[in-house]
């Protein structure tokens, strides 16, 4: 059987999901949206559970809500596990009441019961169950208590098709109106296999998708309008508020009867105290910068670097061994080259930063699951949460793009993904280093800083541009919960980390593998498919030459530059090595002189600008594609970034040409 796991954010849903499925998880994306979809098998019974994104309601507005509604209506699961945070029960039950309207067999998992009891509170499970009309199972997901009973209960409830016993949470005017509407649309709902009650309340909320789904005719729409507008003056409020109010009124009364609040839980009190420091008006931002600095230092420096080096060394050793083995077997030298220079070099360099990614995600998971990230958004305001992926982007775009998943809205996620690569990643540093040494030896620092700032400025400008064009008209309600600080369980964090690592590995071995082979191919063979001794005769160079005129207005319309840029698609570090090979430089000094023949200081800067902004490496492309869930859109993003790069480099070259 298939169950849907639904609940608020921060209700312990992920922890429960992990307890239920162990590592038998499969993570993917809902197609076309940056919304994650997780599925797993429940170890005990073999049923499948789908973890849906944390939501507060079933409104038609956010991507997460829409994706959940569509799943519940179109691919109706056999049962719903509704996880509710007992320390926050009122707001959590708001979603519960809407789920009940769907008339799908359902069990309420009341999580964090241990915290409630410790605070001296209590909840009358029977009363709760009776009034809601669904079974209620108290659990503590982090301690793995009650989970077994929950699994049995939902299995039984679904197998016996026990639907929620209670539907009416309303009274008075609202009650009359709901029943009136239900009556009106009954046959439409049945024809669409849509639960009548759910359809009725959604219609009254003015839910456009529901109106479309039911296929109401003009007459019916007018009658609906009539019923609803009659209700409004009687209540003194509009329809949406009326329904929200109805639900919360019921919940308040229910809570009054069944929930005895002992006082603030230990977690809540502690959170307030921690927050007095972490969200302190003066200290908060410096503290945030320190924490991020610490994370980066640990990730890219202390832990990450040694592990990366270890990984690189390991891969080199393996490559050496394979090379020896291939030679021993007398394998065709071409194949040898393919394997060593192509596959090992390409995939290997990417794999060597796997340790860095794992460590980074460990820390990010820790920050997210503990509740600190919510404070970051609070402290940094507006797109505060976009800040973190962008900061990561200064190290490497790939984990930065993966990190955008934590952002609240679809729009923010998509935009941040597009803008993050403008934050110059560390792989581009060698390129800057070589060029500044060659052309701006006395102003090296200035040039580097100006590049980084240029990246940020372009990001801001593009952000504004995107906001007013593609992403316009999607209001981003910045209304967010600040959950109590909780120490995430080791199991959850490790699973989180492992998930990300698996994803990364998968990407490395598919797209990147393919790309490196293609580039190797283009680099080693000429247009008649013979091996070339000199790279300048290869297909890649031919392509570079073909593309070169495009860069003429930017000041570097030569085939060497464009070929180097193309190899930059596999990994930005390749740009320098390609340049070195193509100009025939033996060492650094040689490279400097030979570059001087290809570029002028101005065209060098324009080249650097282009490198800064154009589409990132294939690994990043794979990450973007994964988040967007669509190759076409990802390609569009790449095109946009490259386009921006071209325009800015053009401006730099031509406006700069006026001054210099």
């Amino acid at each position: 059987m298939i169950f849907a796991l639904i609940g608020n954010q921060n209700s312990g849903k992920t922890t429960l999901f992990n307890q239920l499925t162990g590592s038998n998880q499969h993570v993917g994306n809902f197609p076309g949206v940056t919304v994650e979809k997780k599925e797993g098998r429940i170890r005990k019974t073999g049923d499948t559970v789908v973890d849906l994104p944390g939501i507060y309601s079933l409104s038609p507005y956010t991507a997460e809500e829409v994706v959940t509604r569509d799943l519940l209506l179109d691919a109706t699961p056999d049962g719903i596990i509704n996880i509710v945070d007992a320390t926050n029960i009122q707001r959590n039950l708001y979603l519960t009441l809407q789920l009940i309207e769907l008339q799908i067999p359902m069990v309420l998992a009341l999580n964090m019961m241990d915290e409630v009891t410790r605070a001296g509170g209590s909840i009358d499970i029977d009363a709760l169950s009776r009034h809601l009309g669904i079974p209620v199972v108290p659990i503590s997901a982090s301690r793995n208590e009650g989970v077994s009973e929950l699994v049995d209960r939902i299995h039984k409830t679904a197998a016996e098709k026990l639907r929620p016993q209670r539907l009416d949470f309303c009274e008075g005017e609202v009650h009359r109106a709901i029943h009136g509407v239900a009556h009106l649309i009954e046959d439409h709902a049945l024809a669409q296999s849509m639960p009548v009650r759910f359809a009725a309340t959604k219609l009254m909320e003015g839910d456009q998708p529901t109106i479309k789904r039911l296929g109401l005719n003009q007459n019916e729409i007018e009658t609906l309008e009539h019923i609803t507008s009659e209700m409004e003056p009687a209540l003194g409020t509009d329809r949406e508020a009326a329904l929200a109010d109805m639900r919360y009124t019921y919940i308040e009364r229910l809570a009054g009867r069944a929930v005895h609040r002992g006082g603030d839980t230990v977690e809540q009190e502690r959170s307030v105290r921690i927050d007095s420091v972490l969200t302190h008006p003066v200290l908060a931002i410096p503290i945030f910068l320190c924490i991020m600095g610490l994370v980066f230092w640990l990730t890219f420096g202390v832990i990450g670097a040694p592990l990366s080096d270890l990984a690189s060394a390991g891969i080199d050793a393996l490559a050496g061994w394979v090379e020896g083995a291939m030679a021993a077997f007398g394998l065709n030298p071409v194949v040898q080259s393919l394997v060593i220079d192509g596959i090992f070099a390409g995939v290997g360099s990417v794999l060597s930063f796997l340790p860095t990614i794992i460590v980074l995600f460990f820390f990010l998971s820790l920050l997210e699951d503990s509740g600190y990230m919510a404070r970051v958004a609070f402290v940094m305001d507006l797109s505060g949460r976009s800040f973190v992926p962008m900061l990561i982007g200064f190290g490497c775009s790939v984990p930065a793009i993966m990190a955008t998943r934590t952002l609240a809205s679809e729009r923010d996620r998509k935009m941040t993904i597009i803008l993050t690569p403008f934050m110059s990643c560390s792989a581009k540093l060698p390129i800057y280093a070589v060029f500044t040494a060659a052309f701006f030896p006395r102003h090296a620092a200035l040039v580097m800083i100006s590049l980084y700032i240029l990246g940020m400025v372009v990001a801001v400008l593009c952000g504004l541009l995107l906001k007013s064009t593609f992403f316009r008209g999607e209001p981003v309600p910045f209304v967010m919960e600040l959950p109590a600080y909780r120490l995430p369980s080791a199991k959850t964090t490790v699973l989180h980390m492992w998930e990300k690592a698996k994803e990364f590995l998968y990407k490395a071995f598919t797209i990147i593998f393919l790309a490196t082979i293609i580039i190797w191919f283009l680099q080693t063979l000429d247009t008649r498919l013979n091996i070339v001794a000199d790279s300048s005769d290869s297909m890649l160079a031919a392509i570079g030459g073909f593309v070169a005129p495009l860069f003429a207005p930017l000041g570097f319309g030569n085939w060497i530059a464009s070929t180097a840029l193309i190899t930059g698609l596999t990994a930005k570090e390749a740009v320098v090595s390609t340049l070195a090979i193509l100009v025939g430089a033996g060492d650094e000094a040689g490279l400097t002189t030979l570059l001087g023949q290809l570029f002028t200081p101005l065209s060098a800067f324009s080249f650097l600008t282009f490198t800064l902004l154009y589409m990132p490496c294939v690994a990043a492309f794979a990450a973007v594609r994964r988040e967007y869930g669509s190759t076409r859109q990802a390609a569009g993003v790449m095109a946009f970034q490259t386009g921006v790069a071209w325009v800015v480099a053009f401006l730099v070259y031509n406006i700069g040409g006026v001054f210099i």
Partner: protein
Amino acid sequence: MTLADLEVGQRGVIAAVGGEGALRRRLLDMGLTPKTGVMVRKMAPMGDPMEIFLRGYELTLRKEDAARIQILPAPPRES
């Protein structure tokens, strides 16, 4: 007066929720409904957003959104 006008530590009762579409729905869904009691916990370091306490949990929202919520100030409770 609106929610944005409340001082830190002040309490109030929501009279009406303005705004429209997704934003308004979000406010209502999160429990900011008429007749609900709220308390302003604190302001963010840069003055915006604000953190409020309602229905037993902490919520953060922007001042410009809080300005759409009509409030009746409540007398400070003896706690």
